[in-house]
């Protein structure tokens, strides 16, 4: 294809996106669009799968049968989200095995928040309330993103995430209204998860390298800083309602902006975790790589069995 033809296709492509048309896997797309989507969607899928670990850590120790069932269902939903997102990404011409390989070698990232440890039961509440809350703010705009399979996957993911968030908040309500010990447990979880949740919405706009292109392709509708403000404005009243205190002495309602002003985020901590030196980066990778390696003989057996079955069928047909 000549350079001019490509330019023509690119122009048509951008027009389609501007008209809010969905791009489907078999449509022509610029290589950069494909690569950007593989990167973002696989990162999203990896986050779901790695995200199962911190909550999975409490399945055997959930305090009641009702909570145990809800937590199992939630973590299972995350596996389901991982499954749709990997499948949606596969439509761009990359296999799930290749994506796993990228995760296991550290080439692909996942959300840094999952590198923090879950040390008390209240962390199950805080993750649902704050982490899923921040995820929803990030993800709702993706329901109308330009790439069809991603947009459709996100519609389903967002419905389940909002259920998870309510479930997390409900754990917090129960703790906040419980014994002094339970309330302290809830406050401690909020203290530990608040700042990492704010970091989850990404580096400040000045530092964010992908934003402009992503905006054009509707992979992003608002900047990281706008999303963060939205998250804070939404969450502070929820904390007030249950008598918990946001661990930010600089947090103050700004009448003029009709928004909360908030304190400085420790970006050094953010980059430290992103670069692989958070409290649980190594454990999370070890768990994922370990499950994959331990499962190899199982997957090989399933493949060998299915080949044998196929051969038997063919033999019978003859």
């Amino acid at each position, binding site marked *: 294809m000549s350079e001019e033809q490509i330019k023509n296709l690119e122009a048509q492509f951008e027009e389609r996106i501007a008209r809010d048309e969905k791009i489907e896997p078999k449509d022509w797309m610029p290589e950069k669009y494909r690569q950007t989507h593989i990167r973002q969607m696989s990162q999203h899928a990896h986050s779901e799968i790695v995200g199962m670990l911190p909550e999975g850590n409490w399945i055997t120790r959930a305090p009641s*049968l009702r909570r145990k069932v809800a937590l199992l269902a939630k973590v299972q939903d995350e596996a389901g989200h991982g499954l749709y997102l990997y499948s949606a990404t596969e439509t761009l011409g990359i296999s799930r095995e290749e994506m796993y390989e990228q995760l296991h070698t550290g080439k692909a990232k996942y959300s840094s928040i999952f590198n923090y440890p879950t040390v008390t039961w209240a962390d199950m509440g805080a993750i649902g309330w704050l982490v899923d809350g921040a995820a929803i703010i990030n993800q709702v705009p993706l329901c109308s993103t330009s790439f069809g399979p991603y947009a459709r996957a996100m519609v389903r993911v967002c419905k389940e995430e909002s259920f998870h968030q309510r479930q997390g908040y409900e754990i917090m309500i129960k703790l906040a209204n*419980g014994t002094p010990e339970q309330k302290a447990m809830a406050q401690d979880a909020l203290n530990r998860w608040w700042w990492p949740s704010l970091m989850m919405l990404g580096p400040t706009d000045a530092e964010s390298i992908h934003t402009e292109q992503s905006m054009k392709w509707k992979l992003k509708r608002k900047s990281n800083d706008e999303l963060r403000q939205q998250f804070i404005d939404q969450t502070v009243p929820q904390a007030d309602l249950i008598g918990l205190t946001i661990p930010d002495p600089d947090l103050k309602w700004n009448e003029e902006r009709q928004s909360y002003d908030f304190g400085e985020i420790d970006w050094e901590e953010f980059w430290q975790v992103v670069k692989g030196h958070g409290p649980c980066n190594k454990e999370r990778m070890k768990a994922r790589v370990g499950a994959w390696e331990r499962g190899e003989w199982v997957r090989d057996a399933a493949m060998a069995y299915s080949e044998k079955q196929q051969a038997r069928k063919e033999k019978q047909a003859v």
Partner: protein
Amino acid sequence: MNFNLYKYILGISDNSLILGQRMGALTGHGPSLETDIACTNISLDLFGQVRSYYQYAAKIADDGRTEDDIAMLRKEREYLNVLLVEQPDTDFAFTMARQFLFDVYHLLFLTELQKNKDLTLSAIATKSMKEVSYHQRFSSDWIKRLGDGTEESHLKMQDAIDTLWTYTDELFHQTEADKIMVSEGIGVDVTKLKDNYYQKVNNVLEEATLKIPESKYFQKGGKEGIHTEHMGYLLSDLQYMQRTYPNMEW
């Protein structure tokens, strides 16, 4: 309180509780995303059943204890599950063999329990049967895949079946509470399920090209509350929150 009925219910539901706890622990660590989801699903089904049974047991006990108290605040000696379900997840072959050896029994048992004149037990059985039929299909498929897969998987599955076989006979033991319940027309006579069980199990093992173990030595004790050394650790996790923070609501 009808102590025998109470004990009888625990004898049924403790199996689901302990197996559900084992399967739940695997969430996020499965050999593939699909098997991970399926194992979590089995755990979820089992805990769903457990809740129905213990809620009923709490009603019968009528001493202020809740489903959670019954599930999480007994001493090890008071858990009445068979030894099979508490066995550890040595590898995926053990997980699937344990599941399969229990599922075949579980489905036969529920099929009988369904005919019960105790309407609550009968209703729980009917609801659970749909779930357990799926569990049995899932675990049988894996017995075949691993048994008739690669040489390595065949050896691993054979080892799992050989090791766990010793815990199968206990499924057909009757406790005193069982006998009384059977005589009252509520309990299932498990001794009558035995031949059918081994026939079904053997059929799948044969299809999976696995050898049917010949050992005639079996372990027992779980139904009387005498467990293997694995049980205490499993209960430490299960009971952790209830023991550390007594008398609180979650």
